[in-house]
C-alpha cells in the first residue's frame, strides 16, 4: 500500500529542511500525526509567526524582529568598529565571547563559484554603503570569516573592496586554542601560530 497523499506531502515538505533526510522526515511526520491538535497548532503558529515577524536588519543584515537589530540600536556599543561575519550564527558566537563591543555586518554566505556564489550573491554592497555614508572618525573593520578556503577568499574580497574607502582592516588571528598544550597541536596550526606571533617585549 502507499501512504495517503497528505502524509506524503508532509514528508516531502519536511525532508526539504536542511539536515533532514527522508527517514527523519518520515519520523517527524508520524510524530506530528500522533501529537495533540494543540501541539501541532503551536508549532505551525510558531513557524508562521516567526516568518512574519523576523526580517533582516537593514543596517547589518542580522536577523531581527525589530526595525533595527539589538546591536545596531544599542547606543552604548562602539560605533567605530564593524566585525564582518559569514552567517547570523557567527554573531551569536562572537557575542558569547563578550570580547566584542562593536557592530556587525553579516554577509549571508562565503564566495564559492562551485556553488554559484559570487560577489553578487553575498551582502557586501550594504557594507560599502554603510561605510561611505558615515561621518566622523574612520572605522576599523575586522574580518571574521572562517578559515576555510572559501572564508579566506571572502575575507580577501572584502578587504580589496574596502581598500578605496580608507578604513583600517584587520583579520582575526589564527593559532593555538586557549588552554591547549603545545605538544598536542598539529604542525600546521603550530606553524600558523608561530608565523602570526605577537611581540611582547620591545627593545
Amino acid at each position, binding site marked *: 500500500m502507499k501512504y495517503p497523499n497528505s502524509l506524503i506531502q508532509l514528508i516531502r515538505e519536511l525532508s526539504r529542511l536542511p539536515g533532514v533526510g527522508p527517514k527523519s522526515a518520515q519520523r517527524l511526520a508520524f510524530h506530528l500525526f500522533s501529537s495533540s491538535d494543540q501541539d501541532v497548532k503551536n508549532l505551525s503558529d510558531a513557524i508562521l509567526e516567526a516568518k512574519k515577524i523576523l526580517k533582516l536588519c537593514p543596517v547589518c543584515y542580522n536577523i531581527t524582529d525589530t526595525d533595527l537589530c539589538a546591536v545596531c540600536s544599542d547606543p552604548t556599543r562602539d560605533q567605530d568598529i564593524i566585525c564582518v561575519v559569514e552567517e547570523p550564527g557567527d554573531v551569536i558566537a562572537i557575542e558569547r565571547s563578550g570580547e566584542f563591543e562593536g557592530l556587525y555586518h553579516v554577509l549571508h554566505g562565503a*564566495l564559492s*563559484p562551485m556553488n554559484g556564489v559570487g560577489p553578487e550573491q553575498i551582502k557586501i554592497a550594504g557594507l560599502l554603503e554603510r561605510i561611505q555614508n558615515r561621518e566622523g572618525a574612520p572605522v576599523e573593520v575586522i574580518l571574521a570569516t572562517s578559515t576555510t578556503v572559501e572564508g579566506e*577568499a571572502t575575507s580577501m*574580497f572584502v578587504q580589496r573592496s574596502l581598500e578605496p574607502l580608507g578604513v583600517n582592516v584587520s583579520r582575526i588571528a589564527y593559532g593555538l586554542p586557549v588552554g591547549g598544550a603545545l605538544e598536542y597541536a*598539529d604542525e600546521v596550526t603550530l606553524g600558523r601560530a608561530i608565523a602570526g606571533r605577537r611581540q611582547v617585549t620591545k627593545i
Partner: protein
Amino acid sequence: MILRSLQTLNYRHLEAGKLEFPLGLIAVVGGNAQGKTNLLEAAFVCLTGVLEVSRVETVIRLGELEAFVGVELEREDGISKLEVGLAKGKKLAKVDGVRVKTADLARHASAVLIRPEDADLVHGSPSTRRAFLDALVSKMSPRYAQALVLYERTLAQRNAALKIGGVGLEVWDARFAELGAEIMRLRRRAVNKLKTLTEIAHSNLAGNSKKLELNLVETARLEDFQTHLSEKRREELARGSSAIGPHRDDLEIKLGNVLALDYASRGEARTIALAMRKAEFDLLKEKFGEAPVLLIDDFSAELDAHRRKFLLELASSVPQAIVTGTEAPDQASKLFKIENGRLEVQA
C-alpha cells in the same frame, strides 16, 4: 620499522586471520594469482592509508560490504597498532584504538612498496609522477600536505569562476598564486634531494653509460606567479580551467640526454623507477630516523641478475623486508608459501 603482524578480513581473497612476521628477508612464494600482491598491498594500505577511494570497493572481497586490515608495527619507541576499515566510499583509520584521519597514518608509519607497475612512473602520464611527488613530499612536510589540500580546493573554485566568465576571479588568483608558490618552493627543495639520491641509485644500478637526470618542469613562474596568471587570463577564460600552476607541472626524466618517456625501454623504465623508489626509501629513512617497512612485489620481474642483486642487497640491508616472487631468492632468511590467499610458513 618492523611489521610484527598483519591481520586481514575480507581483503580480496586473502584468508582471514593474523600472520606474524619475523625479522630478516622474508620471501613470500607462490604462483600467479595466489595473493602475493594483495598481501603486500594490504600491508601498504594499513601503513600509509594510501588507497584511492575509487579502488576501495575493488579490494573488498566480492559479496562482502566491509574489509579490515590491521598491523602491529614496531618502531624504535615501541609497538603500535594500526588499523584500517574499508567500506564503499569510506576509509576509517585507527592508531592504538584512537581514530585518526587516514592521511595521518603516514605520521606513525612509513613503507615503501616496490612493484613492476612502477615502470608507469616513467612511461605514464605526468599525473602519475605528480602523484608520486605529492605523496612523498607530503610525508616529508606536513606543511606541504596542508598546502596541497588548500590548493586543490582553491583550484576547483578558481576553475568554477573561470567557467562562468571570470566573475570575482581576482580573489581566487591571489590565494591560488600564494599556495601555488608555496607548493613550488617545497617541491623544489624536495626534488633537489630526490634528484641527487635517484641519480646515485641509478648509476649504482645501471652503471654510467647512460646518465639519468631528473628535473622539475614548472608551468608557472614562481617569482611573479600572479603576473603570469594575468598574462594567461584570456587563454584560461577560453578553456575554462587553470593553465599554469603546480597541478600542471611534471617531473621530467631524461636518460642519456633523451626523454625517458619516449625512448626508455621497459627494462630501462623499471630500472629508473627502482632508483626512484630507492631514493624514496632514503628520504623516508632520513625523515623518520629509521628505515621504512620495505615491501617488494615480484622481485625478479623484468630485472636482470645485476639489478636483482641490487634489490636484494637493499632488502638485506634493513632489519626486515618482505619480498614476493614465483621463486624464493637465495638470500631469504624465512620462507612463506602463499596458495589461494592462504599463507603458510615453510620449514
